[in-house]
């Protein structure tokens, strides 16, 4: 019997290989995040200067929107080629499939954030890199929280009707607490005197959310995906 993590690695490697051939998801997601940031930057600029506290919010909105798009596209690709059913039929433990899909999305979002974070820092002249470790903790935990629920919902909606509009409809209310924590933590770091205590509080809360969401997702993935 192949081990759990070997299965995860095999599926992840397959996804990455497919993606690297065309890089379609990568480029489109990154460019979409870029457009998001620009639209919001333009919307919140007054007399040539952006609103002071807008940066944290805009960063996380861009991550949420780009993430939703990537999730939808990623599972659309699976659905189109009917590979999801093949995966389900394979002798692979279901949670391993979920974890592999989650890892794929995380890789994609990490690449997107590598572009978006410096962009936001540049456009809004915010000292985002003063506390890189805390910022990375926030981004990591927040993205994991968003992506783990997103992967579950995108997988379960892959064969539903109206899936394009239902994914954001279902995903956002559940993940807004994660977004709130991310935004508040980031803006605590961006204050004139960075409020480390607050940032750490939000990081701990994000950790808590992540544990709850990942556990729930792992429990419900199997019953939801059986047909």
């Amino acid at each position, binding site marked *: 019997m192949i081990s759990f993590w070997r299965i995860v690695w095999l599926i992840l490697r397959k996804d990455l290989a497919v993606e690297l051939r065309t890089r379609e998801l990568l480029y489109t997601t990154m460019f979409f995040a870029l457009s998001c940031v620009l639209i919001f930057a333009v919307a919140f600029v007054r007399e040539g200067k952006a609103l002071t506290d807008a940066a944290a919010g805009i960063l996380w909105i861009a991550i949420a929107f780009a993430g939703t798009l990537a999730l939808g596209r990623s599972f659309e690709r699976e659905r189109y080629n009917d590979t999801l059913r093949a995966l389900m039929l394979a002798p692979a433990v279901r949670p391993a499939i979920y974890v592999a899909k989650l890892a794929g999305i995380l890789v994609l979002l990490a690449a997107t954030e590598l572009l978006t974070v410096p962009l936001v820092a540049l456009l809004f002249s915010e000292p985002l890199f003063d506390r890189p470790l805390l910022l990375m903790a926030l981004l990591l935990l927040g993205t994991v929280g968003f992506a783990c629920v997103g992967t579950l919902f995108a997988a379960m909606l892959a064969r*539903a009707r109206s899936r394009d509009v239902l994914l954001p409809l279902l995903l956002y209310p559940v993940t807004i*607490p994660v977004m709130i924590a991310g935004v508040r933590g980031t803006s605590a770091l961006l204050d004139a005197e960075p409020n480390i205590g607050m940032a750490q509080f939000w990081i701990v809360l994000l950790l808590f959310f992540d544990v709850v969401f990942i556990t729930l997702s792992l429990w419900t993935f199997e019953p939801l995906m059986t047909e």
Partner: protein
Amino acid sequence: MRKLFLPIVVALMAIYPASLVLIARARYESTMGLVQKIFYFHMPPAMLMLWSAIFCGVVSGLFLIRKRLIWDHLAVAAAELTVLYGLIAMVTGPLWARKAWGVWWTWDPRLTMSLLMWMIFVSYLLLRKYGGPGSEKLAAGLAVFGMANAPFVYISVNVWRTMHPKTTVVPTLPVDFATALWVSFGGFLLLYIALLAARVRLEEQRAALDRLFMEIE
């Protein structure tokens, strides 16, 4: 369930005027005066929304595990009632807040989390309506997440400093406030049970209709 319906309606007809009398008799609250009386039909629906959300989540979990249709019927009924009671709480709340706090709405944790939970269950109903076949299971998965949200809503007032009154206020209410509140709560609870029974009956009839369609073909 059907046999309980009439007694529940009778009980409601007794509770309704009783609660009105008790609410009118309760003293005026010192700082807020008359508008505080909205409390008696703001707090019970709000608490029941939370319980309904948890109930929906539990029943959905049971549906995912056991796959018996009765759990699904209860889940969709509970979700609709969560949306209804949540709507009531979130309309009476701002009406009270307009006078008590001066604003219709603030983005403090209790209000924000309540709104989010309400939206989760609205999206549950949208998923069931527009998701096509198989959406019962998907919606059940969503409801489990909605249930996970509920404890956060409850403790949010105790953990964060917010404008919303804390949960510790309730045990310390004076007698006339408490009686009016709990009678009102009883009324809303009975109403909830009656509506749940009616809604489940609708679902059962729909399932019977589906079975008939199968037979005809």
